[in-house]
Structures are given as structure tokens and as C-alpha cells.
């Protein structure tokens, strides 16, 4: 904290420059400045009302492109306060029903495998739910949503899963039977983004339906009352929310758009905003001292790792080289120093929160002796400069990562140093956020430090199946293993959760043996919330921390342990 006396020290040279002409104008200037500052001081009190159940101010890192949950490609925090899904997932990544009365499974008869290889999912909707305009929410809305997305005359972000639906039957207003052409294991999250209101959108071009896209009709606890472009979105509570008159507890939520991270954190410190979701890890330390703020941390459903592109840098095709690199990394050191112990190391692509997580996989401890031995075995010999080469080709590659991401830049440099210790020459290259996506999609890189953030379903086929290299998937390791590919596809065709988990556990063990990528640590999700906010739980996935916003309430500070 900068104390006032230091400000005096700033001012001293300025005073001196004025002094040797005439002291009078200087003091006049000072008086004007003082006056201006006083006016400011009077005005600012209003802007710093603390958080209350009357108003909660959120500092948000970006302005949404659209409020249509199916069309946006960024986090849906604002949208999910307004438009509810049939399901969502909680802070432990359990799938929980929202507009659905229950989650259909094989056990409860909600899912039926057909002899022709397809499957039927029976969604029972919660009775008594109304859209904000008073019309009932029905199975016709579910059918309309599927038809609208499959019709393809507008621009939903993803049609994943929907394209496998042949048709939807609506035997009554609260039952929708979804007929899949094939078995589709992640069916539970199919309507996680909710439904489109048929009575409002039927027969319209949804891309052009700006009344809906800017201010969607939902069933959620809030509605949008104002969207001031470039400044904020204001949400106001819905009076007749289906969960009952006691919900939601907070009257109004204001999302202020503050794309500059430092500005956003400064506003949190000054009290101009009350809540900042997903605080960048390098800002956590300065927020710890802030009494008005509590840091809520949950495990994330994502993992930081180094992708090893076997197509672009063929030495990665040798499993001994990949294992050697894994042994060369001191992950504990990274976590303890650069990451301030905010995250925990993990060993595979499926995260500990998932029901499919396999803890008993092969681990690669920090062991430079083992690393050196493996590289030696693989034929990479140290030269006079200590760096390894084989047949005149040096073991040298470029590690790319996203620029402007302070922690990642530091981690990349540390990895560079740790690889150098075993004779591997990695050079770090920083690439801006928009460009890096097209770089990895085209496969034009050797290695990349990044993370994947996934939804609650544990599908990993698109990252590891040998035929899912871009453009068909996200296997940017260009890694191919037949037995792994077979297991992954089998898991996609297994709806029974226990059996699917077994297959995915086998897959995780196989991935750990073959090290297609260097897994570093779990991506913890840390939200800065008012110390007095109760029932805030956070969320490991892109469902976002606002999934239970109806329960949030401002209590007395003493109720919270800090």
C-alpha cells in the first residue's frame, strides 16, 4: 500500500520547479487541484456502496457477443442467470436436474437402448415452470430446440450431439422422448444450455431475432433489464420464479465489463465492484490481504499440459523421449514457486472430480537420472556443449504458448531450463491468443503449453483417438495407438455409467503409459467474492459459478470463516 507521505514525495520536485519563478501560481494550481479532488471525493461515495441483497456488482472480463446460449462461444455466466438448462453441474461436477424433473438413466428407465443400435432418452420436465412471459415451459420447446439446431439455417456455435438425434416425440406437455440414431454416452448434458422458446421463435430466422439474442426469454431467477453496450448488463430478479417466492435473494446483479485485468482487480480493491470470477492466478497474492473479499477455490475440470506434436517434430514419436521429458520436469517446484501452491499436480486428462477418474496410473517423478538414461537408450547422445543429438540432428524444438499470460510465460521458461538440464534444447515462443488457436489447428508447431477446459462429461476421444487429429478433433499430439482408440470408442458407445467408467479407467492407464502429452497440474478455479456472500460454491466447468445464483445471499461477516 502506498501511504500518503509518499505522495508528498512525488509532489516535491514539482513544487521546486515552480518555486524559482514565483510561488503564487504554484499554490493557485495546487488549490485548483485540491478543489477538483474534493469534488471527486464527494462524488465517489455513491459508487462504493458495499455489496448487499439490493445490488451485487460483478467485474466481468468481457462483453458477451450474444445472450443466446446456443450461439455464444464464450462463458455464459450472464446467460445462465436468465436461461436455465434442463440440467447443470454443481461444484463437485455432479450433473443435477434444473428444468428436468430427474436425470434419465438406464437404471430409472429413462434411457432405452434400441435393438437397431440407437437409443431413446425420455426427459421428464419439471411441472409448473413458466417462461418469463407467463407461458408454460413444455416438451414442445425441447422438440423445437432440436429441430431449430438441426435445420441449420442459423449459426449455433456447436451442433455436437444434436446431429445424432433423428427426432423428438412429445407424448405429453411434460415428456420429450429424444430418439438418437446411435448410442450417445454424453446425452445427459445435451440440454445443458436449455431450450429455445417455441412460441417466440417459431418460423423466425434466429440469427436475426435480436429481441431474443439481446434479451432472451428464459425461466431463470433473473431477467435482463438493461444492456448498455461497452459498460454493463443489469439483471433484475424475477418475481414469480418457479423455485418459490424466497428465491432469488439478491434483487439486482450488475455485470460491469472490465476487459483489462489490472483495472478489474483495481476496481475490486477499491470496492467499485464486489465480485470477480476466475481471478488470474498471478493476482491472487494481492487479493489475499483484502478483508472485504473471500477467495473461493474449487478444482477445475481442466489441466495444464505440454502437447507434443509427433507429426511436426518426429523425435516425439519415440515413447522413451516423451517419458524422459516427463521425468525431467520438477512439477512440485513449479507449483510451489511460480504457482504459489494454488494448484495440485495431476497425472492425466480426466480430472479428480470426475466419476471416471483413475488415480492409479503410472506417474513420472522428477528424476533427471531416469530422464538421461531414457534419452541415452533412445540414441540421443550429449555433444561437447552438453546438448543431445542423434545422427547430426539436435534434440531441439520450439515450445509455443499464449502471450500475456504471466504465469504461463514463467512456467514455459522454467520448463526450458529443466529440459536443458537433461540436454534437450527447447526455445520458447509467445503467440497472441487469437493467433495461437489457428496455429495449433493447422498443426504447425512442435510443442505447446496450454490447457483444455472440458464440460462435465468425461469424453476424451476427441483428444486421443488416432483418427481425431484436426480437423476431425483435437488430437493435436498427432498421437496414434490402436488399443487406446478402440477403448475410447467403446466408452463412447457405453451408456451404463459403471461400465463406461471402467473403459475410461483403462484408457487413462494407457495414456499414462504412453505419455502422449506432459501433464502438469489441475487448473484451479478461484473466484473473488464478497466476504459476506453466502452459498457461493464455484464451479469446475464452463457452467460457471452462477449456476446456483438463486441461493446467493449477503449475510453478516461473522457467518463466514475466512
Amino acid at each position, binding site marked *: *500500500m*502506498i*501511504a*500518503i507521505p509518499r*505522495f508528498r514525495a512525488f509532489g516535491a520536485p514539482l513544487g521546486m*520547479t515552480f518555486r*524559482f*519563478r514565483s510561488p503564487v501560481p504554484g499554490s493557485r494550481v495546487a488549490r485548483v487541484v485540491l478543489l*477538483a*479532488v474534493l*469534488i*471527486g*471525493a464527494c*462524488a*465517489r*461515495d*455513491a*459508487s*462504493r*456502496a458495499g455489496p448487499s441483497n439490493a*445490488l451485487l*456488482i460483478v467485474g466481468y472480463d*468481457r462483453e458477451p*457477443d*450474444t445472450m443466446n446460449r446456443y*450461439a455464444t*462461444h464464450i462463458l455464459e455466466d450472464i446467460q445462465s442467470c436468465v436461461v436455465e438448462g434442463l440440467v447443470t453441474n454443481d461444484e463437485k461436477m455432479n450433473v443435477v436436474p434444473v428444468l428436468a424433473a430427474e436425470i434419465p438413466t438406464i437404471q430409472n428407465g429413462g434411457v432405452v437402448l434400441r435393438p437397431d443400435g440407437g437409443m431413446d432418452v425420455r426427459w421428464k420436465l419439471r411441472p409448473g415452470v413458466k417462461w418469463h412471459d407467463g407461458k408454460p415451459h413444455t416438451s414442445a420447446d425441447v422438440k423445437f430446440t432440436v429441430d431449430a439446431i438441426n435445420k441449420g439455417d442459423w*449459426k449455433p*456455435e*456447436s*451442433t*455436437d450431439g444434436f*446431429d445424432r438425434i433423428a427426432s423428438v416425440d412429445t407424448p405429453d406437455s411434460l415428456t420429450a422422448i429424444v430418439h438418437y440414431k446411435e448410442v450417445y454416452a454424453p446425452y445427459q448434458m445435451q440440454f445443458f444450455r436449455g431450450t429455445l422458446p417455441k412460441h417466440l421463435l417459431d418460423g423466425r430466422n434466429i440469427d*436475426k431475432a435480436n429481441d431474443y*439474442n439481446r434479451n432472451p426469454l428464459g425461466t431463470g431467477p433473473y431477467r435482463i433489464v438493461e444492456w*448498455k*453496450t*461497452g*459498460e454493463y448488463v443489469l439483471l433484475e430478479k424475477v418475481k414469480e420464479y418457479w423455485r418459490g417466492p424466497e428465491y432469488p435473494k439478491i434483487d439486482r446483479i450488475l455485470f*460491469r*465489463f*472490465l*476487459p*483489462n485485468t*489490472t*483495472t478489474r482487480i*483495481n*476496481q475490486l480493491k*477499491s470496492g*467499485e465492484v464486489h465480485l470477480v470470477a476466475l481471478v488470474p492466478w498471478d493476482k491472487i497474492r494481492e487479493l489475499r490481504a483484502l478483508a472485504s473479499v473471500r477467495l473461493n477455490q474449487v478444482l477445475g475440470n481442466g489441466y495444464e499440459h505440454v502437447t507434443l506434436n509427433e507429426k511436426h517434430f518426429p523425435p516425439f514419436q519415440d515413447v522413451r523421449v516423451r517419458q524422459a521429458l516427463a521425468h525431467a520436469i520438477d512439477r512440485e517446484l513449479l507449483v510451489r514457486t511460480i504457482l504459489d501452491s494454488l494448484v495440485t499436480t495431476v497425472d492425466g486428462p480426466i480430472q479428480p472430480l470426475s466419476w471416471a477418474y483413475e488415480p492409479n496410473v503410472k506417474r513420472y517423478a522428477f528424476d533427471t537420472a531416469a530422464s538421461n538414461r531414457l534419452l541415452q537408450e533412445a540414441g540421443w547422445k550429449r555433444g561437447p556443449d552438453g546438448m543431445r543429438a542423434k545422427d547430426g540432428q539436435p534434440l531441439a524444438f520450439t515450445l509455443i504458448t499464449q502471450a500475456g499470460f504471466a504465469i504461463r510465460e514463467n512456467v514455459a521458461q522454467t520448463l526450458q531450463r529443466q529440459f536443458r538440464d537433461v540436454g534437450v534444447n527447447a526455445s520458447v515462443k509467445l503467440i497472441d491468443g*487469437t*493467433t495461437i*488457436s*489457428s496455429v*495449433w*489447428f493447422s498443426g504447425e508447431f512442435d510443442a505447446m503449453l496450454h490447457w483444455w477446459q*472440458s464440460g462435465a462429461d468425461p469424453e476424451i476421444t476427441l483428444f486421443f483417438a488416432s483418427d481425431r487429429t*484436426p*480437423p476431425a478433433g*483435437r488430437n493435436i499430439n498427432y498421437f496414434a495407438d490402436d488399443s487406446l482408440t478402440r477403448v475410447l470408442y467403446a466408452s463412447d458407445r457405453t451408456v451404463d455409467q459403471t461400465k463406461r467408467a471402467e473403459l475410461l479407467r483403462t484408457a487413462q492407464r494407457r495414456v499414462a503409459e504412453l505419455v502422449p502429452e506432459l501433464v502438469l497440474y489441475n487448473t484451479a478455479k478461484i473466484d473473488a467474492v464478497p466476504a459476506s456472500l453466502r452459498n457461493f460454491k464455484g464451479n469446475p466447468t464452463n457452467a460457471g459459478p452462477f449456476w446456483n445464483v438463486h441461493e446467493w445471499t449477503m449475510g453478516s461477516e461473522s457467518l463466514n470463516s475466512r
Partner: protein
Amino acid sequence: MSFAARRLAQAIPLLLIISLLVFGLIHAAPGGPLSLYLDNPNVRPEDIERLKRAMRLDKPLATQYLSWLASFVRGDWGYSYADGRPVTERMLERVPATLQLVGISTLVAVIVSIVVGVGAALRRGVDHAASIGAVAGLSVPVFWLGLVLQLLFSNTLGWLPSSGRASFVGGGLGDRLAHLVLPVTVLAVAHAAGWSRYLRGSVRLALAQPFANAARARGVTETRIVLRHALRLALLPFATVVLLDASIMASGAVVTESVFAWPGIGSLFTEALAKRDYTVLMAFLMCASVAVVTLSFLADVAVHALDPRTRNAS
């Protein structure tokens, strides 16, 4: 009249060339409006292809340029790739905030420049201080100064709001003025630093002219010579510089707007750039080019009208 017409005729091919260059550069930048979609594992290649077709990004670049140009000159600026709204609507809603910020900052910077510039031309002590101040003002990065001012006046002292255009609660006139103080200071410092040096130089030059000596010989006081004669002469080139800089500032308060979350077209530009929102970027850059061309044209015409010597030369 013929002078103005000739300058206008030159502007049109210039703008055409700019549009071609800008279009080429924007599309040459790696990534496109869809590249951010790739980060979501659930967006599949079929989705990318489908969206590309829907946005007509699958057409050859020349076709895209010609169809953009044809619509643009007809006043149809297209739709934003990011949110699907008309580009004109997105631009227009941001203009007032930028005009307010840039207008006030320019005014403040001009007043400061005149006071400091004239003072520096007259008094050696002021000159030294002003030149140190100017070097500091020119070399301090705008985003750094902005963040330091936020830390000091907003976080530590709590006197001023750190960003935004108005408080959500209690946003009266005083509140709006308080929100202006920091961004205006940052922008004004950056410009006054250069302009005051420029004005000081012009005043010095004017004072070295024979007419100044003639006035001195007649016993006119130095202050009077500066204020009545030298300053008037010096303001001519100064006005040109201010007009040109203001046109750049009108489109280019990009950094300041981003640091202070000011909802102007500068922050729209930052956003559009990150998302490779081609239609918004093109419209923004064309407006910026038109502003620069127009204001430099106005500066020429103004000098032409004010200074009889340039009239004789043409």
C-alpha cells in the same frame, strides 16, 4: 474553391488504396473470426465449416473485398461477426463517449500547451522545467500512467473512481466529471507534452523574426510582443498539428479507453481486433482514415485561408 476541390479529388483514390491495404492486412493476420471457437472442444470441424459458409468466409479474398466495397460505398456496412448486429449501430453507440473524452482532453491539452509553451518561450526556468516535463510526458507509456493514477487516486486515496463513464448508483454530473478526471489527465499529458514543445519552438521562431525586433525597438514589452504578435503567428502551425493529432486521437484513444474501461470506439476496436471481427475492423479503420484525411484537408484549407502567402504560391 478550386484548391479545395482539387484536395477532395485527391482524397478519393487515397481512401481506395487505404481500404485495399487495410483489407489485405486484416485478412493476412493469422486467425479469423472463427479461430476463438476452436478453444471449445465441443465445436467440431463440421461446425467451423458450417459457420464459415454462413459468414461467407469461404469465398475468395478478392470477391470478399469487392462485395465489401460495393456495400460499403452504398452505406451498408454489414453485420458484426461477433454479435450479428449492424456495424453502424455498434459504431454509433460508441461515438458519444469517445467524442466526450477526446474533445475534453484536446481542450485541456491545448490550454496546457499554450500556457506551458508560451511560458517556456519567455522564461528560461520554465523552459527547463517544461522540457523535463515534456520528456517525461512523452516517454511515460499511457497504460502505465493510467494504472499508476488508478492505484494512487482510486485505490490508495479513494478520491476518484478508477474506471468507467459513470457510477451505476448515483451517477449525477459530479460523478460523471469525477470519472473524466483520470482518463482526461492521461490523454492530455500525452498530447500536451508534444504540443507544448512544438508551440514553444514556433513562438521562439516568431520572436526571432525582424518584426519582433522592430516592436522591441519601439519599446513594446516582451509579454505584449509574445501575446499580440508572436503567438498569433505561432498558432498557425500549432493548429495544424492539433487538428492532425486530434483526428488520430479520435480513433486512437485505444489504450486509454481500455485501461479506464471507457465505452468508446477505441475499446470497441480492441475487442474487434481480438475477435478478428472483420466488418467492424474495416468500418473502424475506414472511419479513422476518413477522419485523418478530412482533418488534414481542413488543416490545409485553414492555413490556406489564414495565410495569404500560401494563396499566392498556389
